[in-house]
């Protein structure tokens, strides 16, 4: 295991390194080194702000999850475009309360963001006990079916990605 003192957040360091190289938009030795230095230094300096960054359990599941989400965004955008251009009086908006099976703040955040990014649903609030998520839906027929869909398609893979 990588030493926690020497490199407290290896995942974050890797991300910062990638972001640096993308920002300068070229890969030369000096930027690779400078990026690595910053990626090592910044988590050290800001470590007090990151009380609990969860460790990823299954990286392959995370990639599969990202693939599913991107595809859903693509498909659902077309659906929502059709809803917007159709007659507004036909829409059936609803607030839906969804029970959460995740108990990790970071995982809940990822789930809420995913719900907001996939068109037709916006996460509106999380209950204080972190057990329920309030979701506003633009057009829904069967709210229970929607909850089952979100649970099966997004929450279940997240439970495998993050330790819960």
């Amino acid at each position: 295991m990588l030493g926690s003192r020497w490199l407290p957040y290896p995942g974050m360091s890797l991300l910062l390194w990638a972001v640096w190289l993308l920002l300068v938009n070229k890969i030369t030795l000096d930027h690779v080194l400078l990026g690595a230095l910053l990626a090592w230094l910044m988590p050290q300096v800001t470590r007090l702000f990151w009380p609990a960054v969860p460790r990823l359990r299954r990286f392959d599941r995370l990639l599969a999850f990202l693939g599913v989400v991107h595809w859903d965004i693509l498909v659902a955008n077309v659906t929502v475009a059709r809803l917007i251009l159709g007659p507004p009086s036909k829409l059936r908006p609803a607030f839906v309360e969804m029970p959460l099976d995740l108990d990790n703040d970071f995982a809940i955040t990822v789930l809420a963001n995913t719900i907001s990014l996939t068109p037709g649903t916006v996460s509106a609030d999380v209950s204080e006990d972190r057990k329920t998520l309030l979701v506003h839906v633009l057009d829904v027929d069967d709210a229970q079916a929607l909850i089952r869909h979100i649970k099966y398609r997004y929450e279940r893979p997240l439970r495998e990605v993050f330790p819960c």
Partner: protein
Amino acid sequence: MEPWVEWTVSIAILVGAVFVLVGSIGLARLQDFYMRLHGPTKATTLGAGGTILGSLIFFSAQRGALSLQEVLITLFLFITAPVSAHMLAKAAMHLKIGRRSGTRGEPWDQ
């Protein structure tokens, strides 16, 4: 630049622009605050995605090397857009902004 590259770039940008336009139409046309929230969050996904794809292909072809800087725009959008939508919804519920009649379910105020 090859003609097929120009075509691909044009199509990507046009598709992106159409979705941003639809998002804006939704913002103007939908009936209550919560429904309007859906317009902008949508435009930032596929609309920005199409525009970014066009930019990515254009600059990669122009430089003759892969340009991935645009990926960062997607990353930052995907982090910030849902959070701002969430905060807007939370603020609207706190101010008890009215819903369209026929909306099922109750907003919270906590």
